[in-house]
Every structure is written in structure tokens, then in C-alpha cells.
């Protein structure tokens, strides 16, 4: 669990500061043109991650996914480009640089605060933002529904048999469809409940919390910018 000012930063930072980490990384990734630049940049992100992430499970999971994507890109680059390894590896490293920081940062976004910043900071339409925040809130309910759907399928003999890939695919499809139906029905019930709480007639909403920028948020924003500047600076000084 988080201790000290650095480790708490990701949990306290405002959602726009967190999202900016991913955006800067995306832009910085364009400047990864050789292996040295790429490795130094990814190394810099890893080093900062060691200092700030509160727990390792999720960042490593994101790294694994980015890694899979990177290997795929490297392989196809190697196949498609006359079996030249070096440029393909650069492409792969760039994928990690572009995907990993943002996917980690977005996980720490608090939906309600994101809503405050989108509506009050970025002036997005209030109704859209309120509905968006309420929909993010429903992810927890979906996890619960997945468990219940899985139970009754298992009890009815329709659970997955992991030794039969085709059966597993069919099970996944059936579960995904049931979850979709469940989500849609849940969403319409929530829509009724929201409308009955004044949302139906709310064209000018107010916001119960202000969207503020604290010193931590500025530090996170500048930190994200500095990390993303590593590749262009390295390219410049050659």
C-alpha cells in the first residue's frame, strides 16, 4: 500500500494530470527512431514507476499486455521488412513506450473527479459527462453479474471445458452476449432511476466539487512531460 508522498501521488493526482502522462508518452513515442533512444526512454519510465506505483500487480499486467503487442509488432516488422531485426525491434520498443505509461495511469483515474474536470475544466456538455461517469460506475456491477452468469451456466452443464477450445469459444460468446443483455437492461433501469432524480430535466447542472489543480497535479503533469521529452532530447543531442 502507498507510503510517502511519491507513492500517494498517483492516487491523489487529478484525472487530467494522469491522462496527460499517456498523451505525452504517445507524442514522445514518435521520436523513438533508434534502439538506444527507445531503451533509455522505456528505462526512464520503469525507473519512475518503481518510485511511484502503489502496487505492482496492475502495472506489471499492463506491461505484459504491451509486451505481447510489442513482440507481435516486432515479429511482423521482421517478416515484412526483409528479415531485418534492428528496425523491427525499435518498432516494438516504441509500442511499449506508447502504450504502457498511459494504460497504467488511466487505471488510477477516479470517475467522479474525471467528471468534474471534464465538465468544469474542459467544458464538455454536462449531461454527457454525468451519464459517462454513471456508466463507469457500473463496471463493478458487471463483474458481479459475470460471476452469477458463470455459476448458473456451470450448474446447467454449459460451463467451459478447457480441453475443448471450440466449447470454450462458444461459452465465451454465450457469456459475452448474456453480459451485454444484462448491461443493457441494467443501463435502462439506471436511466430510469437517474431521470427520476432530476436528470430528465437537468440541462444546466451544477457540480458538487470544484475541479482544482494542486501542487501534486502540477508535479505529475511536469513529470509526465519530462519523461516524454527523453526521446526527442536524445535525438537532438544525437
Amino acid at each position, binding site marked *: 500500500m502507498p507510503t510517502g508522498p511519491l507513492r500517494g501521488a498517483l492516487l491523489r493526482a487529478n484525472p487530467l494530470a494522469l491522462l496527460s502522462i499517456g498523451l505525452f508518452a504517445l507524442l514522445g513515442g514518435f521520436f523513438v527512431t533508434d534502439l538506444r533512444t527507445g531503451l533509455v526512454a522505456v528505462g526512464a519510465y520503469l525507473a519512475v514507476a518503481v518510485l511511484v506505483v502503489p502496487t505492482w500487480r496492475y502495472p506489471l499486467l499492463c506491461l505484459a499486455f504491451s509486451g505481447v503487442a510489442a513482440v507481435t509488432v516486432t515479429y511482423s516488422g521482421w517478416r515484412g521488412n526483409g528479415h531485418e531485426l534492428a528496425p523491427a525491434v525499435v518498432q516494438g520498443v516504441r509500442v511499449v513506450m506508447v502504450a504502457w505509461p498511459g494504460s497504467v495511469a488511466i487505471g488510477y483515474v477516479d470517475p467522479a473527479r474525471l467528471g468534474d474536470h471534464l465538465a468544469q475544466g474542459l467544458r464538455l456538455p454536462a449531461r454527457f459527462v454525468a451519464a459517462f461517469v454513471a456508466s463507469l460506475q457500473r463496471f463493478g456491477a458487471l463483474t458481479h453479474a459475470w460471476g452469477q452468469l458463470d455459476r448458473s451456466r456451470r450448474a446447467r452443464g454449459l460451463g467451459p471445458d478447457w480441453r475443448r477450445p471450440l466449447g470454450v469459444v462458444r461459452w465465451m460468446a454465450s457469456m459475452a452476449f448474456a453480459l451485454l443483455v444484462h448491461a443493457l437492461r441494467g443501463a435502462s433501469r439506471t436511466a430510469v432511476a*437517474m431521470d427520476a432524480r432530476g436528470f430528465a430535466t437537468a440541462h444546466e447542472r451544477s457540480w458538487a466539487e470544484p475541479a482544482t489543480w494542486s501542487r501534486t497535479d502540477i508535479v505529475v503533469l511536469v513529470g509526465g512531460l519530462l519523461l516524454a521529452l527523453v526521446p526527442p532530447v536524445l535525438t537532438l543531442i544525437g
Partner: protein
Amino acid sequence: MLLVGASGAGKTTVLHALTGALGDVIAGDVSGQVALGGRLGLLPQDPMDAVVADRIGRDVAFGPENLGLDRDETWRRVDAALAAVRLPYGRLHPTTALSGGEQQRLALAGLLALEPDVMLLDEPTSMLDPVTAAAVRDAVVEVVGDRTMVVVEHRFEPWLEHVQRVVVLDGGAVVHDGSVASFLATDLPGLWMPGAPDPTPLDVDAALVSPGGSVVAPAGEALVVELVTRMLRGTQRTRALDGLDVATRAGRRLALVGASGAGKSTALAALAGLVRPSAGSLMPDLGRLRSKDVPGVLGWVPQDPEHSFVTTRVRDEVATTAQRVGRAVDVDAMLDTLGLAALADAHPFRLSGGEQRRLALAAGLAHRPGLVMLDEPTVGQDRRTWAAVAGWVAAAAREGAAVAVSTHDDALPVDDVVVLERGRRA
């Protein structure tokens, strides 16, 4: 005002019409008019549906925000509403950490913060155990003041002293509209009238329930189940079972009872092998079976009937599991017994709440399992569905099946009762 009627009579539809959701959020053809004076607030059946934020303060603030109130007034109303429903937590308490009764009180607070003129309550206590239901009812009565209140409920007796007018629906039409006294003098069928005896359990033909395979009666010793909700901003661990000893027996009906959050449903799922205990022993452990072998011994009826549906026709729903295990099933006799014969070709999702519950019963138990398990089978049900559940489990046990239900309904006839409290025997 109290609005009553059997399942499928159109009670919830009336509330939705009042909120203006019909034909708009909910698809369908609408004609006619609704006249309404003042602002309106709805308390939905499932409090989970009302949650829009992950902290209780922000959730209650949703209504005031919609009204465009400034921050001082918003938070004044939030604090007043939370105090009125007696939720003893701060604004930052997570909404996911509330029990069922607390969630319903949170939804009530969200409604109060709107300061509505009309309060619509759609079965506000049907998902709660009696003690929690009484607390929620008291909270409602305390805050309603001189507002208009419309409450829909099957077990309406405790509401009678708090209403002046009763409207009864049947088949989408009003069959009674008058004072409480004139309502009590009527003799309308299918309602839980005060003082009336519990419905006679349905008479179920032995051929429909007599176990088609061997009877398995699992027993658990010192069961521990930890439910983990992982979120990045904190992992939540709840110990749902904490060293529970519980055994099912062939030919007997076991009821797992206790307050909401006591671990009833988890205990049932653990016995059925549907959730892995982290400690303790199960004999036999159905969790070791492959899924295709599970229905050979187990019949499972989940709390939410919609979770169990896997086909697009009522008839297919009843036949599916029996086909998987190669047992004959008389689909028409099943549907006839449960009063679903006219709906044999309907889509399961088109049925009303009570009809869905009866279909889930048929879908889960048509293959005549030797172990019959039902999770909260009588929550929010009308008399007909209640009689079907009670009759079905009685007949199954009589034919030698081991039966277990998790319930907070003390009228449901059973043979053995295990009272749970915080994951262990009380």
C-alpha cells in the same frame, strides 16, 4: 397510496409511466396522459440501479446537481438526507461497501435530497430481510411528511397503517380503488391480505421432481470463503464464510437464514461447488466435477432469474439442461403446473418478474436433480410464485432429493434451519 396486484399486473409500468420513462427510455407504444403536480422521485426495486457514484456523498449529491443548486445548498441537503435515513458514514464512504439495506437507505437519501413532492417507491423492501426492511420502512415513514407517496409492494401489510388509499391492479386494469378499510373488506384473489393464511404450496406431480440420478447431499466443515473485489484504488476483501459447518441431507429441506450479508448465498454456492472455499472441507466436493457432469447431480436456481436464461424461448429454456444430461422431461406438464403454458413460445426476457422466477425454477430443476438448491427463491414474489416454490421443494424432498435454500422468508416450510451470522452459525 398503496399500489398492489399480482406479478405482471402492471404496477411497475404505472410507476414508469408517472416518471415519464415509458416510450422514451423504455421502448413501447404509449397512449393516454399523465397529469402531475410537483417534482417526483423514484426509489427503484434494486438499490444497485440507483447508484451513480462511488462515494456516498457524491451519490446523494446527484439530484441537487441536476437541480443546478450551488455547492453550499447541495452539501447541506446531502448531509441532511444522509442523517434522515440514518446512514452513519461520512461523505467519502464507498458505495460498494454498503449492505443491501444500507444501499436502499442510500437510494432513499438520494431521493430526499431532491426534496420531491411525490415519492414513488417500487417494492422498496422486497430484497431485504425483515429487520432491515422494518428499518427502511421506518426511515421512509419518518421522512415522507406531507408529501404524496405511492408505494408498490407484495407483502404490503406493514404499509397499511401508513397509507390512506389502496389501488389494486389486475391484468393492467384497476380492480379496486378506495380506502384501506374498503380494501380490507374485499376478497381479491392472489394478494397477501393481512391475517390470511400462507398460500397452499403447489401440488407437484412426483414424476416431475423424482430424482433422475443418484442423490448427493454435500456437507461442509469449517468452511471459509473470502470474496475479493479488486480495484486499483484499493482491494476489498470480505470474509463471507468464517468457519461454517453445514450439511444437506437426502429427503430434507434445509433453510440457510440470517440478516443480509450474513453469508447465506455464499454458503449455498459453496455447498453447490460454485464458489471455492479457501479453507475447510466439503464432502463430496462438487467443485471438482467438470461442468458437463454437474447437472447430473445439481439443480441450481439463482437469485436473479435472468442470470440463468440461455435460450430465446420459454420451452427451450425448460428442455436444455435435461437434454444435456440425457433425461426425459415433460415440458408441457412443467409449464402447465407453473402456469406458464400460454407463454411456451415467448422470449424469457419478455416475462414479468414472477413469471421469470417460475421459469428459472423450471429451467434449473426440470432435469430432476438429486440435489436441489435455490438462492433467495421467494424474494419479492406474489402468492402464486411463492406457492410454486414451496410446493416444488416439498415435492422434491418427498421424492428423496436433498434440498437447500437461502432465504429470509420464515413462512417457507422447511425441515431444518441453520441461522448464519457473520459467516458462521449464530
